[in-house]
């Protein structure tokens, strides 16, 4: 029996307050939790007939409003999480879209396979990873998640089931990956995994006294490292602006790991149970005490100085411990206080990246709102229509939101956005809460947006699929916005 609410959804679907991962945006939505692919098609059909809009939601790890749909329906796909096929001789896995990265690696690591691209947390679903075309610390080397997807199934708003791959519906394949769930429901993903010779990585730590030294550390290792990620102390200014610590990691070759057999065991891939003696499940409470800015400044400073103890040293670390830093502290998103935080990630072309990122950090200082956490990564272009990647660098920043600073913070992001756009930069929708349609148009270009909107018009002519992100930043760029507006329940005037 189906667990879906009885139609009509307008009456019977339960309301649920859903937030973005950063907790700074939320809305009451009608909530559906299908248990099977059939239910997804049914739900879409029913919503269409009631004139309700629909957004898809996986694990809800997008920081902003990408999986929120004020007044409309949100289809939570996390129960569609069956692993359909796993072939350890080829490394090809097929699963429903609600399977998480965690569910995936737990099944494959003991066979010697690791997902080629993972985000900083293992919680996201495959559907979410496809919709956002997420990237990892190895984006410069292996591209985004989509580059490793072989095939996927899409249920369109019209109820049609399409199979997409590089050979079949190739153009649509490249639009759906990174397509924000706006072209249909991804229900099945076929993925190629990476064969690894050990459950561990060789990790090296390099500290940098400023942004230039950080960039140098990356560039010296770009040709041979498998992963590169930089932590930036965004409080540092003047000559130390952009200082931090780079972690570079390599896959191990045969014979390099003395404990290779046991390294693959799932239990060897765990995260630490406590950090500095505090049980990690409660650590967010302790972190919350740090909410005043001077304490975060101190924490960043201490982290930076203690990083020098590891400078130049290398050690073995499990894939999980290296990849999923964000999962070290459960519920860390609560640490920022009741109004939450925004994450804001800028992507800038290589040629002018050093200066642009210095300027971005300086803008934060001028506004007296340095980011509490900064992460630097290197990227490469990819063939996906709405890709956020480019040949360049990204800096992701966390900013706490309070009732008092909200307007000032949004104004700061506008200044940073302008600076990044002037440099030819881009942004990442999974992290976005602030972009305006004009910013998106400048970042992505009219031509790409038109191509995407043409797919949208073709597959979803009534504009049923939406999200608060889409309504805020992209829908106004559609050639026929009246079609969307007419269907956006609760938004349009009668």
């Amino acid at each position: 029996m189906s667990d879906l609410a009885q139609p009509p959804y307008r009456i019977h679907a339960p309301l649920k307050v859903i937030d973005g991962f950063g907790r700074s945006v939320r809305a009451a939505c009608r909530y559906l939790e299908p248990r099977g692919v059939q239910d997804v098609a049914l739900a879409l059909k029913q919503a269409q007939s009631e004139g309700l809009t629909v957004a898809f939601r996986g694990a809800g790890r997008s920081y902003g409003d990408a999986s929120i749909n004020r007044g409309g329906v949100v289809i939570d796909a996390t129960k569609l999480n069956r692993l359909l096929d796993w072939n350890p001789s080829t490394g090809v896995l097929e699963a429903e879209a609600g399977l998480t990265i965690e569910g995936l690696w737990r099944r494959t690591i003991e066979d010697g396979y690791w997902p080629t691209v993972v985000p900083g947390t293992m919680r996201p679903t495959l559907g979410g990873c496809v919709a956002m075309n997420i990237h990892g610390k190895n984006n410069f080397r292996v591209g985004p998640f989509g580059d490793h997807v072989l095939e996927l199934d899409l249920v369109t708003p019209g109820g049609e089931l399409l199979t997409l791959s590089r050979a079949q519906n190739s153009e649509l394949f490249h639009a759906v990956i990174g397509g924000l769930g706006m072209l249909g429901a991804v229900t099945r993903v076929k993925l190629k995994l990476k064969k690894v010779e050990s459950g561990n990585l060789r990790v090296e730590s390099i500290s940098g006294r400023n942004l230039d030294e950080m960039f140098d550390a990356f560039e010296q290792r770009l040709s041979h490292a498998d992963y590169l990620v930089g932590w930036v102390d965004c409080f540092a200014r003047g000559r130390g602006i952009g200082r931090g610590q780079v972690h570079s990691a390599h896959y191990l070759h045969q014979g390099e790991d003395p404990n290779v057999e046991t390294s693959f065991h799932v239990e060897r891939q765990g995260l630490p149970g406590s950090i500095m003696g505090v049980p990690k499940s409660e650590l967010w409470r302790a972190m919350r005490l740090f909410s005043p800015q001077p304490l975060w400044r101190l924490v960043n400073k201490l982290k930076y100085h203690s990083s020098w103890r590891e400078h130049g040293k290398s050690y073995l670390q499990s894939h999980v411990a290296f990849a999923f830093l964000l999962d070290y502290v459960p519920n860390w998103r609560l640490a920022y206080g009741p109004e939450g935080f925004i994450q804001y990630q800028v992507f800038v072309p290589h040629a002018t990246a050093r200066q642009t990122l210095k300027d971005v950090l300086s803008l934060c200082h001028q506004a007296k709102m340095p980011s509490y956490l900064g992460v630097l990564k290197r990227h490469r272009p990819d063939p996906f229509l709405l890709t956020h990647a480019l040949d360049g660098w990204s800096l992701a920043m966390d900013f706490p939101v309070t009732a008092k600073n909200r307007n000032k913070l949004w104004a700061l992001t506008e200044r940073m956005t302008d600076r990044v756009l002037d440099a030819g930069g881009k942004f990442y929708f999974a992290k976005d809460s602030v972009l305006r349609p004009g910013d998106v148009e400048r970042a992505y270009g009219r031509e790409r947006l038109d191509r995407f909107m043409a797919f949208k018009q073709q597959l979803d002519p009534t504009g049923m699929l939406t999200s608060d992100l889409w309504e805020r930043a992209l829908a106004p760029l559609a050639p026929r916005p009246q079609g969307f507006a007419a269907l956006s329940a609760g938004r349009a005037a009668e």
Partner: protein
Amino acid sequence: MKAKLSKVVVVGASSGMGEAMARQLAAAGADVAIVARRGSELERLAAERPGKLRPYVHDVTNVDEVPELFERIERELGGIDGLIYAAGVMPKIEESEYAFEKDRAMVSVNLLGAMAWMNQAAARFEAARAGTILGISSIAGERGRRGNPAYCTTKAALTTYLESLRNRCARYGVNVVTIKPGFVDTAMTRGMKGLFWLISAEKAAKRSLALARKGKSAAAFVPSRWALVAFIVRSLPSFIFRKLNF
């Protein structure tokens, strides 16, 4: 923080405390959606302040209408920051009468209707981290009196429901207020014997709104001296309480 009551839905606005509150809110400048079953009564009230008091005909027992009507009001008022649920019925139950249809009507109007409306409001107010939900319960919910079992039950249930809602939503900045009036001079009490401390609907409405505007989620007796009565009534052991004709 003081609660804003600028765009308010009053359910059960055609008479009694609901009508008085709607009138007072509109006089204070609020846009008020007045909701009730009897269209003619609504038109009469709406005519007092055209544009400020907006009539919506709705029978609260038709709970399936609520989601759409709530959205419609939200659109037409340009948002909602307060919901007042004042609909209530108390059919007379004769001595030795056991009438399920009357009981069912009380559960539908006094309780289920309240839940249908408050669910809509609570979800939106929690998301907005603001908003006021005010429910008119009754001192009758303090004890199970012999005179009208279902009425006491629905009011006890409404009091508990509002308390739960308060405990659930106050942490998100939602102001949930339970008003427990004593005897109020309305159509509901007209002709009843043995009434005391009777106050006008206008006065009861004024005190209720004053409490709601404070923005401190609370439950209160109106007028407050009924708190003493409630305390005594709750303290009486059951074997004494059942001997009273109260």
